[in-house]
């Protein structure tokens, strides 16, 4: 396609990469935290719950700043990573981390709801039939969670695609490195005559977001049919 310049293409490609990895990185912890919040009773459960949801209600810039303080090369974790030769501040990996943190509450909420919708009596039935706890989880709980996991992944992806505040604070707006789609739109709007490029990227955003929603709808329907909830 001729109508996007190389710089714009770079932003689109980077955003897709960042959103994909943010979704993947958040997935396993998301399932674990959602399961713990839905099914386990432990002290400090409310604290975990608040921490998980904090990025949803905090100003994104604040989240980004906290990430910078923690994961920046001067930060406690960032410093340790640097000694191992890993730097994520001002890199695309940092953008992915920021997007993952911001998307995490949405992912957890969606998965948690799907777990809470599963009747524990089904899991009891599986246990009486001889299934160990791990087997019960893998053969009953997990398959019944799938629609929620999928919906959560799509939400997380869409959120990661659109993340701006935390990203620009944590990893700045470096073309080709951390200039994601929203950052690029913002950058184009800062220069005279950038409106057309910005509008083209807005169109791309709409296409990607709508595509993700339609895809999730199709897969969710197919899974719902498979797990007998249709």
């Amino acid at each position, binding site marked *: 396609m001729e109508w996007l310049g190389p710089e714009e293409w770079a932003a689109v490609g980077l955003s897709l990469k960042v959103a994909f990895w943010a979704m993947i990185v958040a997935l396993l912890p998301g399932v674990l935290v959602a399961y713990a919040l839905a099914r386990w009773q432990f002290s400090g459960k409310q604290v975990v719950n608040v921490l998980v949801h904090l990025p949803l209600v905090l100003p994104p810039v604040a989240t980004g700043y906290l990430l910078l303080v923690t994961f920046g090369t001067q930060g406690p974790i960032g410093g340790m990573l640097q000694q191992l030769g890993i730097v994520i501040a001002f890199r695309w990996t940092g953008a992915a981390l920021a997007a993952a943190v911001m998307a995490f509450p949405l992912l957890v909420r969606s998965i948690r709801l799907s777990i809470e919708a599963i009747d524990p009596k089904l899991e009891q039935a599986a246990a009486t*039939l001889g299934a160990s706890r791990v087997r019960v989880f893998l053969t009953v709980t997990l398959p019944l969670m799938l629609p929620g996991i999928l919906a959560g992944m799509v939400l997380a992806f869409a959120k990661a695609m659109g993340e701006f505040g935390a990203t620009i604070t944590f990893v700045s707006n470096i073309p080709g490195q951390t200039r994601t789609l929203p950052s690029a739109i913002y950058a184009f709007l800062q220069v005279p005559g950038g409106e057309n490029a910005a509008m083209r990227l807005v169109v791309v955003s709409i296409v990607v977001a709508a595509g993700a929603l339609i895809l999730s709808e199709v897969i969710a329907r197919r899974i719902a049919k498979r797990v007998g*909830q249709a």
Partner: protein
Amino acid sequence: MSISVQIKQDFESFNLDVAFEVPAGLTVLFGSSGSGKTSVINAVAGLSKPKQSRIVVNGEVLGDTTSGVWVPPHKRGLGYVFQEERLFPHLNVRKNLLYGNGLARERREVVSFDQVVDILGIGALLQRRPAELSGGEKQRVAIGRALLARPKLILADEPLAALDEPRKAEILPYFEQLRDEFSLPILYVTHSIAEVARLATTVVAMQGGKIARVGAATEVLSDPSFTPMGVRAVGAVLEATVAQHHDDGLTELSANGVPLMLPQLPHAVGHKVRVRVAAQDVILSTEGPKGLSALNIIEGTVQSVRAGEGPGAIVSVDTKAGRVLARITRRSAAALGLSEGVSCYAVVKSVSVAPQDIGTR
């Protein structure tokens, strides 16, 4: 083979304190809701862990809080049929049936997959999902799934309660078959006297968390002082054999030589059945009645008369066919001079015995 259960646990609404030991066969835990039946069966299943308990099945200690033994549910070798069928919605019928089958390879198979499908008549349903089944079909699949888990003990918690009458009539015979053909011990929870009468080898009657009666079904149900579900539900159980099918749609039974006429039964001649005769369907007469439409007139002797708080009394009559209970008014009992040792006739209309009151044994 025996099941031995001791449980003590305080709940918010009641205190459970039971201890019983029952032989092989089908044991019915019987009582109204809130009597603690489900707490007992769930403790046997290992789904709940009472504070103080000892559960031994077939000599194997499944749980003993004194010595700290607690076998988790998945290692107990059970087949649990729940009130709601609890089929896995994401698996088709075949996969539901086979769910527990592969998990217990060390145990002997009770029945083969083909046998289960055949007995329960679910061959046409194998590819369907639970959402596409009727209530009765779901419960049949649930029974099959429990059987195929190679159980040492079948647990059933009010498996018919969620079904309508025709579906109950459809499922009940399968439990009779389990009891008679597979010689599997079964612990069966219900609040229905009809199910007790048809199924129970042994009855463990519970009331308010305590055990009210333990004994053979015929004994417990023929006890006139035992009215856990109110006097309207009282009725003795007679054991009989199918003697002859008559052309006019009646089946003649022989209860220890005494003929009983009932509406046609599906069982072959020689088949052993148990018949529950509701006490309020029995009329007593001190003289041999004549010109009466009722076909069953059984001679016997009054064993006891128990007056209730209201106008009624329950008279137990020992006959050659077995004990019969009759619920009559105190006025009639006085007018007829019924008291211990008086001979009388128990009159039972054939049509008053409903099909669901007749089971095999």
